[in-house]
C-alpha cells in the first residue's frame, strides 16, 4: 500500500486549485464559450458536395445569398468511417428559419449557388433564440435541484461537512473543466451538457468512495486524529481511484480521438474531467473536510 502524505500538503493543493479556478474564470470571462446553436440559437446545416470547395468559395457563395452570412461559421468535416465519397461542411448561421418558405428559399439559393456539385442537405438543426434561452434555464433548474438532493443524501449518510466537501469538489471540477472548454474553444451544446452531468456523477462517485473509507476508518480507529485517518483512507483507496480513472480515461480518450465531431464535445469534457475529478477526490474533497470538522470541534469545545 502506498504511503503518500496527501493531507499534509493540502494547503499547497488548495492554493493550486484556487489558482486553477481563478485561471478558468478569467479565461471564461475573456474568451467566452464557443456556443453551438443549442445555446445561441440559429441554424447549423451540414451540407455535402461531390466536389471539394475551399472555405472562401463557400463563404462567397453564402455572402451572395445574404450579406449577413459573411460571418457564418464554416467548418469542413468528415463524419468518419463512411462509405460516402462526398465532402462535408458545417455551416452555422445566426438566422433561424421559423417559416417554411424562408427555409425553402434559403435552401433553394444554396442549391443555385453551388449548382454543379449535387448539394445535399445532410443535417439541419434550427433552434430559435428563445429555445436556446430556455434550454439554458431548465439546465440550471436541474443542476440546482440535483445539488440540493445530493447534499441532503450525503448529509444523511455521512455528515453535513462531507456534503459540503463533495459539492465544493464537484464545483471545482466543473468550473475547471468549463475553463478548458473555453480555452480550447470546444463547442458548448447539448452533448457538452451531458458530459458535465456525467462528470458530476463521476466526481461524486469518486469522492464518496474516499469518504466511505474515512467513515469506516474513523469508527475502526477511534481516537486517531482526523488527519491521519483521512490520509490512511486515501492511501487505501488510491489504487482503486487510479485504476478506475485510467480505465475511464482510456475509453473517453479513444472516443475523443476516433469518435468524430458529434461526440467530441462529450468526450473532451470527460477526458479533462476524469483527470480533474481524480485529482480533486484525492487532494481536495477530503482535505477540505478536515478543516470543517476541526473548526466544528473547536466551536463545540468553546
Amino acid at each position, binding site marked *: 500500500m502506498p504511503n503518500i502524505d496527501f493531507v499534509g500538503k493540502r494547503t499547497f493543493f488548495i492554493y493550486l486549485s484556487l489558482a486553477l479556478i481563478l485561471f478558468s474564470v478569467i479565461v471564461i470571462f475573456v474568451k467566452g464559450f464557443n456556443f453551438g446553436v443549442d445555446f445561441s440559437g440559429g441554424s447549423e446545416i451540414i451540407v455535402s458536395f461531390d466536389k471539394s470547395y475551399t472555405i472562401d468559395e463557400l463563404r462567397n457563395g453564402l455572402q451572395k445569398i445574404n450579406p449577413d452570412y459573411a460571418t457564418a461559421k464554416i467548418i469542413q468535416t468528415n463524419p*468518419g468511417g463512411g462509405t460516402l465519397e462526398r465532402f462535408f461542411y458545417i455551416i452555422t448561421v445566426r438566422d433561424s428559419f421559423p417559416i417554411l418558405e424562408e427555409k425553402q428559399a434559403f435552401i433553394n439559393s444554396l442549391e443555385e449557388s453551388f449548382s454543379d456539385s449535387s448539394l445535399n442537405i445532410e443535417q439541419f438543426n434550427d433552434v430559435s433564440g428563445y429555445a436556446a434561452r430556455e434550454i439554458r434555464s431548465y439546465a440550471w433548474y436541474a443542476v440546482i435541484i440535483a445539488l440540493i438532493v445530493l447534499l441532503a443524501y450525503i448529509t444523511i449518510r455521512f455528515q453535513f461537512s462531507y456534503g459540503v466537501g463533495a459539492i465544493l469538489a464537484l464545483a471545482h471540477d466543473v468550473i475547471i473543466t468549463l475553463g478548458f472548454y473555453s480555452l480550447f474553444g470546444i463547442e458548448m451544446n447539448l452533448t457538452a451538457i451531458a458530459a458535465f452531468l456525467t462528470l458530476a456523477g463521476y466526481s461524486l462517485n469518486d469522492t464518496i468512495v474516499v469518504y466511505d473509507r474515512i467513515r469506516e476508518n474513523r469508527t475502526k480507529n477511534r481516537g486517531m486524529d482526523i488527519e491521519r485517518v483521512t490520509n490512511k483512507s486515501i492511501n487505501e483507496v488510491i489504487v482503486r481511484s487510479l485504476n478506475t480513472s485510467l*480505465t475511464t480515461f482510456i475509453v473517453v480518450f479513444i472516443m475523443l480521438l476516433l469518435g468524430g465531431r458529434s461526440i467530441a464535445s462529450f468526450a473532451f469534457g470527460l477526458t479533462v474531467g476524469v483527470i480533474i475529478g481524480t485529482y480533486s477526490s484525492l487532494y481536495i474533497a477530503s482535505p477540505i473536510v478536515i478543516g470543517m470538522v476541526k473548526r466544528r470541534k473547536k466551536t463545540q469545545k468553546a
Partner: protein
Amino acid sequence: MRNRRIRILFTIIVFVFALLGLIIPLSDNVNDISIFRFFPNINLGLDIQGGVLLEYSLDVPEGVDTSNVVGNVITVLRRRMDNAGYTEAIVSEVVSGGESRVRVEIPGISDTQRAEELIGSKGKLYFAEVLEVVESTTTPQITRNRTIQINGEQIEMYSYVRDSNNPNLWYRVKNVFEFGDSPFQITGLDVTDAVASLNSQGAGFVVNLNFNNEGRQKFELATANLINQRIAIILDEEVIIAPVVRERISQGRAEISGIESMEEAQNIAVLIKSGNLPVDLVKFQERTLGPTLGRDIVTTIINAGIIGLIIVMIYMIIVYRWMGIIADIALVYNSLLLMGVLSWTGAILTLPGIAGIILTFGTTVDGNIIIYERIKEELRIGRPPLTAVKFGFNKVFSTIFDANITTILAGLVLFFLTSGSIRGFSVTLIIGVLGAMFTNLVVSRLLLESTSHFLKPEKYVKGIVVEKGGTK
C-alpha cells in the same frame, strides 16, 4: 449456501429476462445501424437513425389557457400524420419551463417540406360567395366591412382572399351565406370525408368532399341560390378554386378540381379530413438528420467505444488476472441486461443515451475494481480466498451503494426536469447504474465465490510465509 442458491437463481432469471427482451420480436423496427442490427427491439432516437424532429410552440390568443388546446392540437396533428402516411410519427406534448409545446418526430424521412406544410397549416376550410375578382400586387382595401355573429363566433362579412396559385389574383368574397332562415357558414366541420384522386373528366387532380346531413342541406341551399355565380373554396385563407355553380347540388358532394399534383391533392384532403388547428403553431426548433449521415456518425462513435472497451477489458485481465476475467464477464452481462431492459421498456436510445451507456461501463468496471481491491486487502492480511471474497463483498456493500445511489438520484432529477435527448441520457444512466449494482453485488459475487480457488493469495501477501503445495 442458501444465499448462493438465491444468487444463482437471480443471475439466471435476470439473464434470461434480458435475453428474451433481445430475442422476442416486440416491435417491427428494422435497425440496420452498426451493432443495433442485433438489437431490433431497441427504439433508436432520431439523432441516431435519421429523421426529423419539429417542435412548435402554440400561438395562443390572450386569455386562453394553453392546456385546453394542446390536446386538440395533438389529435389534429396525429390524424394528419396518419392520413399522410407517416404512421410511425410520434406526436407528443412537451412541457418545459411552464410552457406547453407540441413535438412531432418522424423517423426516416429527410425531406421535411411536406411534413412542415402539413403541420404548419391551420387546415381551416370554408366556402364563400365570390363578389369580385381583382388583379393587384398589393392587398386591396376593403371599404365597407361589417361583422356578423354566428354560433357565438364573430365573422367578418366580406374579405379579400388571395388565389393559391396566382399571388396577384384577389377575390372579394362574402364569408357568410344569407339564404333561408338565418345566415350560415359552410366549413370543414360539415365535411365527413375528403379523398384525393385523378380527375377523370379533365386535367389534374381532384379532391372529393362528402358532406354530413347539415352540410348537405346548407350546400344545396347555397348552390340553389348562386347558379351562374362563383363559389370559392378557401383553405387557410387562400382560394384553392372558385368554380361557377351550374346547378343546384343536392347529393351532398362537392369536388375541388384543378389541382396540379397528386401530392398537393393529398395534402388538401389530409388537411380537410383532420380538421382545423385551433391555434397557429410557431416553429420552436427543428432537427433534421439524413439517414446516411446518422448511420455514419453512430457507427464511428460505437466503433471508438468498442475499441476503448476492449482495451479496458484487456487491461483488467492484466492487472487483476482471474478477477479481471470476471470483471469482463460482469461487463458483458450488464451490457446485455441494459439492452434487454431498453428493449422491454421501449425507451428511446439517443446519442447522449449512448454516452450514458459508456458511463455505466465505467460504473461496472469501477464497482469491480472497488471489490477486488478489498479482496486483495483481505488476502494480504492472510485470509483464505473464499473468506477474503466474502469479507470483501460485505465491506464494499455500503461504498458501492452510496456511490451509485448518488448517481441514480442525479439521474432521476434529470429525468423529471428535462426532455428529449438529455432525458435519454438519464434513462440509460439510471438503468445502467442499477444494472451495475446488481451485476457487481450479485453476479460478480457468485462467480468469484464459486471460483475462489483460482485466486492466488501468495501473490498479495508480503512477508507472510505461505505453505506451498501443502493444502492438497
